[in-house]
Every structure is written in C-alpha cells, then in structure tokens.
C-alpha cells in the first residue's frame, strides 16, 4: 500500500483519538458531582433565606462533599413564604430524625446549616447527621435548619444593637454639654473669682472638719465602750446563725447543680452511643455496591456453556462413529481391490482362451446392437414428447427454474461456509499494579470481511465478583430492627465474552457480553489491520465509573503481536497498566468443525 493513500486516514484517526482522550480527561477532571440519582436519596430543608445558595452546589459533612443541592423553590408555609431546598444525599450517609426529650426539646436530630464560604457572599450547606431516632427517608424533611451563621449572624446581631448606638449618641451629647459648661465656669474671670471663693470656703470647711474629727473621736470612744459591754458579741452570734443558714442553702444548691451535671453526662453518653451506632451502620453500608443482577447472568452463561459443552460432546461421539464407519468402508474397499487384482491375472489368461469364442459371438452382438439402437430411438422420441420423469425434466421449464433456484441457494449456502474465516487468538498481558497475568482465548468467526462474532474466555486477575445481600431483622430493642449486609465475593473464575462486530472502513464497532457484563467496543485498524487501537467500555455498575480499557496492538510478525494499554481508565483506584503479547492465526480445523456441525444434528 502506498504511504500517500493511508496518510490522511492515519493522521485523522490519530487526531480524533487524541481528541477523544483529551475530552474524556477534561470531563473526568471537571465532573462537578459524583452523586447520581441511583446512589442518593432526596431530603428537603426549609429556609427563611437562601441567598447565595445555587443548584448543583455541594453539600458537605465535616468538610467532605456528601451530596448536592438538587432544587430550590418557593413554598408557602405556616410561617409565610419560605424556600424549600432539595438535597440529594449519598445513600451511605444516614440522617436521623432525632427524639424529643422530657423537656420537649428535639435531641440527636440531623441538622443543616447555611454557611458562608467566602466574603464574596457565596454560601454552601453543611450537614450534621444526628445521632439517634428514625432515619430520614426519601422525601423527608431535615428537622433542624440553621439559616444564618458566621459573618451573617454577627451582622444580624449588630443590626439588633442599633438602639444602643442611639443611646450612646445621646450620652455623648450630654457629656459635651457638661464639658462646655465646665469650660465656661472655670475658664472665665468670673470662674477664677468663684474658684478663689471655693478655696476660701474649703479653708473654712477644713476648720469645721477639725471640729468634726474631734467629735468623731468621741464617737469611737463610745463605740469601744459598746463593744466592751457585749453588744457587738450578740450581733456577731446573730451573724453566725445567719451564715449557717446560708451554708445549708448553698449545699442544697450544690446538690441541684450536681444533679444537673449527671443529667448532662447521661445526655452526652446517649449522644455518643447514637453516633457510634451511626458509624456502625455507615461501615456496613460502606461495603455496598450492587451487581446482584449479575448472579442471574452468570447462571445463564454457565447454563449456556454447559449446553455448548454437551453439544460438543455429542458431536464428538457421533463423529467418532462416522469416522469408524468410514474407516471400515475404506478397509472393505481396499480388500476388494486386492482381490480384484489377484483375480485379474487368471481372467487375462481365460480371456485369451475365449477370444475366439468372443469373435464368433460378435456377429450376434451386432445384431442385438441394431435392436438396441432401435429402442434408443423410440426412447428419445418419448423424451421429446415429455413422457416420464426425464422427459418432464427436459421439457418442463418451471421445473428447471426450480432446480436452478435450489442450486443457486445451495451455492450461496456453501459459499458462506467456504468464505467463513475462523481466527484463533491467544493473548496474555501483564498487569503492573495487580502484578499478575491476564490471559484471553478468542475465537473470531468471520462470515464476511466486514463483520464477525467474537467468543472469548478470559482469565482475569481481578477474578469474578459476585454480590450477596443479607438482611438481618431482630426484635431486640437494643439493636437496630433491620441490618442490611452487603458482601462482595471475589472468586477466581473464568469470564466469558460474546460480541457482534461490524466494520466500517477502518472503524469497527462491537457490542454484546464483555467479561460477564454488557459492554461496547470500538476499534481503529490501520496498516491492513496490523495496528489496532482498541477501546472497551463495560462493567457499568461495579465502581463509580464504567470500566474503560484502552489497548494498542501491533502485529510485529506474521501471527505474532505485542500489546500495551491502560485498564479501568475512569476509576482512579483501580487503574492499571498492562503490556503483553499474543498469537493470532486462522484455524481450518475449527472451520471444518463448523461445517460438520449442522450435519450431526438429529
């Protein structure tokens, strides 16, 4: 093939593959939500104000996204017009409705808080799961809603303190007036005169104070006398009695306070127990992911495979009998041939002796030949008139056309089997992270150049994963009424693929069963199918994303190819890199097996 002829398709193919990879990478990087509707349940929260909240934004729990805002709508409630926010929460997260305590207050209930994410006015929702009570289900309402927090709350408090500012203003005005008055009183000449008068007055007052002190001394002497005569002692006794009563009251108060601490401690323990219960349930559900339907698929596949193996066993039995018969016939034939050769020598000698007799009878034979020719003439005349089966065959056009159609159909049938190619491929690749080999045996039945059926038996190091769901119910009030347990069993079992493929120029599309799961495939073939870019998308339910495998195969020599690629590209935790080699050839024996297969059917 000329290089110029394949240049354009190769370049376009490479560019499109690079574009597809770039597109998938960018979409996987910016995928805003990892929560699909199947993995979540919807709960609602009623807010007075939803400013700053937007749909599809994350809902966090301890800073980790556990859901998204699915809707924001206006509703009329008893409290007036409010906003109802729909929140899709990961099923692994359990929210509790809480329980009302003796004081009528709700305890242990899930709460949602509208928090400010930046000073620019963006908000998000934060969830607290609660600790006990019934779990919230699809469509339930989150009991506790806190609509204002952070800077918003501070601003709201400041708005309430507006009247304090007004009072401060008034006080400041009064202070200003007072200070102005003082300045007026002290700063002027009149003020200074007044101050002199004040000092003079103070002098007089000090004189009077001296006399007051003398009087006070006399009073203290009088008090001392009272102390000495026992009056103060009596007052002290009364004070002591009073203090004893106060101590008793204090002890009673202390007992009440202590009782309050115990209750608080009990509440704390109850909340802790509820949270531990919540953690236990979340751990149980962490194990969950579902492919339960695959159990039935596996059963069907194994059933089909059993039927197929039974069919092959029946065929081999029948074929063995046929081969045995054929060999016996051949043995009889060869024996007859030997006998004939042994007899021929004696016959020649006998023939020589009877030549004379033969010549004598030749004349009689010629007479009989004349009679035979006459009979032939009569038969040919009958055939011309369409008498007998052969005569009808020769003269009836409709019969001839039917025979021609049958021959044509038979020709097409035989041609389809003659053109069918059966390709056998044995590939083995080494997975770097799994550190083990993956082996694939492929049978490709190709009735036409542009389509084929692919049957594969796969030995995958990941094994075959099956899901088991166990629900345990109990009447024990100390335990949850129902515990759902999800167990994933991984067993080392073979996987099977059966796909139909159709080729359009250098592009081949495939679909069908792919390693025990539904799947799609896309192949890009270049250089007479020696270079192949292969993409498989399957196993849609096992992990967060479907399993996407990209593989490059290059046939370096006849029947021998090398390969390399990436497995599970979309799931970061399971992504693996692989390289390997394989053999590919056309197996005529399998083709013969297919040709013989219909003939052994009863």
């Amino acid at each position: 093939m000329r290089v110029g002829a394949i240049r354009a398709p190769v370049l376009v193919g490479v560019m499109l593959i690079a574009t597809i990879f770039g597109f998938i990478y960018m979409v996987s990087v910016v995928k805003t939500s990892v929560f699909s509707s199947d993995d979540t349940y919807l709960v609602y929260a009623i807010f007075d104000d939803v400013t700053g909240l937007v749909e599809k934004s994350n809902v966090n729990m301890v800073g980790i996204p556990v859901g998204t805002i699915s809707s924001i709508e206006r509703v009329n409630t008893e409290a007036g017009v409010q906003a109802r926010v729909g929140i899709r929460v990961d099923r692994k997260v359990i929210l509790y409705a809480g329980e009302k305590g003796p004081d009528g207050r709700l305890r242990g209930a899930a709460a949602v808080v509208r928090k400010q994410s930046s000073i620019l006015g963006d908000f998000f929702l934060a969830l607290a799961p609660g600790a006990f009570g019934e779990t919230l289900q699809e469509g339930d309402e989150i009991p506790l809603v806190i609509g204002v927090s952070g800077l918003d709350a501070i601003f709201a408090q400041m708005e309430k303190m507006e009247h304090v500012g007004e009072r401060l203003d008034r006080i400041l005005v009064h202070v200003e007036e007072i200070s102005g008055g003082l300045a007026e009183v002290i700063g002027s000449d009149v003020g200074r005169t007044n101050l002199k008068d004040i000092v003079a007055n103070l002098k007089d007052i000090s004189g009077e104070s001296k006399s007051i002190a003398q009087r006070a001394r006399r009073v203290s002497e009088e008090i001392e006398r009272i102390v000495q005569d026992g009056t103060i002692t009596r007052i002290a006794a009364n004070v002591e009695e009073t203090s004893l009563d106060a101590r008793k009251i204090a002890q009673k108060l202390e007992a009440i306070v202590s009782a309050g601490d115990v209750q608080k401690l009990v509440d704390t323990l109850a909340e802790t127990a509820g949270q531990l219960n919540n953690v236990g349930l979340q751990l149980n559900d962490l194990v969950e992911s579902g492919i339960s339907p695959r159990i039935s698929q596996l059963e069907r596949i194994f059933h089909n495979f059993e039927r197929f193996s039974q069919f092959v066993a029946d065929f081999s039995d029948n074929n063995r009998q046929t081969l045995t018969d054929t060999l016996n016939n051949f043995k009889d034939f060869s024996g007859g041939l030997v006998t004939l050769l042994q007899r021929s020598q004696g016959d020649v000698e006998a023939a020589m002796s009877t030549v004379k007799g033969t010549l004598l009878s030749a004349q009689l034979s010629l007479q009989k030949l004349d009679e035979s020719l006459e009979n032939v003439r009569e038969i040919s005349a009958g055939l011309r008139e369409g008498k007998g089966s052969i005569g009808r065959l020769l003269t009836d056009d409709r019969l001839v056309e039917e025979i021609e159609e049958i021959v044509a159909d038979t020709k097409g049938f035989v041609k389809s089997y003659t053109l069918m190619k059966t390709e056998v491929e044995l590939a083995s690749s080494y997975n770097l992270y799994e550190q083990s080999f993956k082996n694939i045996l492929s049978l490709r039945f190709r009735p036409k150049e542009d389509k084929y059926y692919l049957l594969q038996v796969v030995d995958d190091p990941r094994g075959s994963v099956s899901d088991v769901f166990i629900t345990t119910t109990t009447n024990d009030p100390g335990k949850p009424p129902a515990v759902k347990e999800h167990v994933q069993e991984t067993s080392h079992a073979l996987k099977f693929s059966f796909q139909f493929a159709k080729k359009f120029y250098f592009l081949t599309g495939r679909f069908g069963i792919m390693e025990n799961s539904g799947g799609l495939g896309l192949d890009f073939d270049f250089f007479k199918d020696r270079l192949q870019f292969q993409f498989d998308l399957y196993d849609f339910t096992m992990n967060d994303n479907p399993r996407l495998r990209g593989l490059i195969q290059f046939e370096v020599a006849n029947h021998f190819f090398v390969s390399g690629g990436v497995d599970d590209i979309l799931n970061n935790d399971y992504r693996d890199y692989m390289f390997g080699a394989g053999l590919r050839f056309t197996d005529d024996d399998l083709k013969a097996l297919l040709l013989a297969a219909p003939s052994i059917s009863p």
Partner: protein
Amino acid sequence: MLRAVINFLDELGRIVLMFFQVLYWSFRPPFRFGLFMRSMEFVGVGSLFIIILTGSFTGAVMALQGIYAFGILEMEAMVGGSVALALARELSPVLAALMVTGRVGSSMATEIGTMRVTEQIDAMETLAVNPIQYLIVPRVWATTIMLPALCVIFTFVGMVGCYLVAVVWFQVDYGLFMAYIKSFMGSEDIINGVIKASVFGTGLSVIGCYKGYTADGGARGVGAATTTAVVLASVMIFVLDYLLTAMMF
C-alpha cells in the same frame, strides 16, 4: 435600504437551501470516503498547528491578566477556574472557528470559486457528477466533525498555557488551581462548547462553499467571494454564539 434587506434575505435563503441540499446529497450513493478523509485531514490536521499556537497563548495571556486582577484580592488561584470556564464556554469554540474560517473557509471559497469561473464545475455536471455531492458534502461534514475536535484541543492547550503561567511562573498553589477549575466548570460547559463548535463548523463551511459555488466574474470575482465568505462566516459565528449561549447557559 429595502433593496439591501431583500438582498440579504435572498442570500440567507440561498445559503440555507444549500445546507438542505448538502443534507440531501449526504445520504445518497456514491459515498466518496477518500474525498471525505482528505477534507478531514485538510480541515483538522492542517489546522492543528495554528490552533495549538493560538490556544496556548490565549490561555497564557488570560492567566496573566487574571492573576493581575485577582491579585488585588489575593485570590490568584481563582484564575484557573475563570480561564477554564471562559475557554470551554466561549473562547475555544469562537476563536477556533475564527481560525478555521480564516484558513479553511477562505480556501473553500477560493478553490470552488476558481473551479466555477474556469467552468470545471460545468464540466463536472456534463459528466453527470453532482458538484454539490462531490465538492461540498465532504467539506461540510469534515468541518462539522473536525471543528469540535479542534475546539477540545484548543481548550486543552489553553489550560496548559494557563497552568504554565499561573502555577509554574507565578507559583499559584496547584491544589487550589485545580480545585477552582473543578468548582467553576462542569462537564456540561465542555459539551456545550463542543456543540457550539460543531454548529460553527457547519455554518462556516456552508458559507465558504456557497460563496465559491456562486462566484462569477473571473479572478476578481473569486477574490470578492473569498473576502465575503470570511466576513460573513465571522459575523455568523458571533451571531450564532450569542443565540447558542442564550439557549445553553
């Protein structure tokens, strides 16, 4: 004035009719796979260099300006998200379409126009080869398919340019850079950008082919047809961009 309006509507109607003719002849044999591949190579592979060049520098200069602007608030990390959103939604489809218009749309108009004025198209019709099916269908489909691919590449290399300026040069925190990209941009932004590019590709190729197909007046007429095709396609891109943006976002 009225005459100009009537002429404009007449021209618009003829372009739309040619689009329907392209659709009609797309699904009738013979299917010329080789021509289609060559057109895809010309439109897509041939435009790669100019797209990578403009894309990387667009992302880089957007990052540079964004860092200066966000730096006032000390929020330089937001430049990743804002540039990614701008690229995916608007810049990639529009700038890639304008680049392809300049390179491919003009080429289509010139090539087909030259064939028209040298009566090669008439000769083709004489030989019972439909010129729309032979000349225009492969070009329109090639541009419709390859322009979205170029748009994706434009976005990708634009983000690489943004990364180099923001993270490598200005030492913006890589984690915050990526976090804001994820926070600001959704997969629907990329998909809508790709859809936009596909519509632009169809529009610019139909206009380029139409102007060439209807060219007359010799070499001067071909030149005029080329100029008109580029101007008309560029205007069409901005008008369609507004309409699609209003519908999508």
